């Protein structure tokens, strides 16, 4: 740790350090945690949210009776983009029914990556719906597993029912460069999107 003094003229330490965030979403077991790990500069951490008023429904689903407290964790990582800009990556909980806990989870995010396992396309439907509902710009990243079949991208687009403007890229979430390329695709998409008037998106 860098122990800087508090007496710097002009206020607090850290000068103009800024942050941006990108969410890594997708269905259960699609590689979200793996991607956060592979691109992060820091040892990935988890932050926890405590659910104190578990509904009967949640209690039943997690199989614990009379439970009033449950913890849902969120993996996150950090990439230092330059001396003053940090990119924080947050992997959403695999179980979408917990997303409500993260009040404003997607608020203030530049955008999201939705990971899709082509062997189980349906597992990411909810994540895609959620991005559309919350108006979060996203790219779809097909995480390639050893026994994944190669589908033509247009077939995947059709099955996922996403707009022709939403990019689809293939990746290996375990690979840093490949995961980085997915983030690059997202930022390029955000730039292109901004060049098009809102109505025609």
């Amino acid at each position, binding site marked *: 740790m860098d122990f800087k003094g508090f007496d710097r003229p002009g*206020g607090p330490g850290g000068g103009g*350090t800024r942050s941006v965030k990108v969410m890594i979403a997708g269905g259960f077991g699609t590689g979200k945690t793996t991607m956060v790990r592979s691109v992060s500069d820091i040892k990935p951490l988890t932050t926890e949210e405590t659910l104190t008023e578990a509904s009967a429904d949640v209690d039943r689903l997690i199989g614990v009776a009379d439970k009033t407290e449950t913890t849902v964790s969120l993996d996150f990582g950090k990439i230092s983009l330059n001396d003053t800009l940090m990119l924080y990556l947050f992997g959403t909980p*695999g179980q979408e029914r917990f997303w409500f806990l993260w009040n404003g989870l997607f608020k203030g995010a530049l955008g999201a990556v939705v990971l899709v396992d082509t062997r189980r396309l349906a597992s990411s439907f909810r994540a895609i719906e959620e991005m559309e509902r919350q108006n979060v710009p996203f790219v779809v990243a097909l995480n390639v597993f050893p026994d994944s079949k190669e589908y033509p991208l247009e077939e995947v687009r059709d099955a996922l029912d996403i707009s022709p403007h939403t990019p689809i890229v293939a990746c290996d979430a375990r690979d*840093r460069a490949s995961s980085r390329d997915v983030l690059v695709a997202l930022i390029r998409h955000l730039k292109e999107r901004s060049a098009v008037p809102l109505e025609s998106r």
Partner: protein
Amino acid sequence: MSAPRRPTNPSGLERYYVLTKGRSGPGGSASSLDVATLIVSRTAPAPGFQHEHEEILRRCRDPLSAAELGAHLGLPFNILAVLLTDLLEAGHVEARDPIPAHGAGSGPDLALLEEVLSGLQRL
């Protein structure tokens, strides 16, 4: 993995109750705290500070995200938010929200996106 877990520390709840003096959620200036909000100390801890407050001030001499801070302190986000509210209200820390792709009312921040892109390409 992100499967739900029971708190590992059985006395956890009691500890949180003590830490937050029974307040369950942040109000006021911390209610908008984001996991990616950067926290920066504005003052040095003074004698008599609550241990956790002191710890926050010490760790945030350089800006640190609320998520990282929570992970380092082993506190759930909502509990940390209560502690941060105290510090924010007393002016001991400053909070900086993550920059969204577009500022309120203004267009998309192309310069920011360009900056993110070149940072990623250097990786």
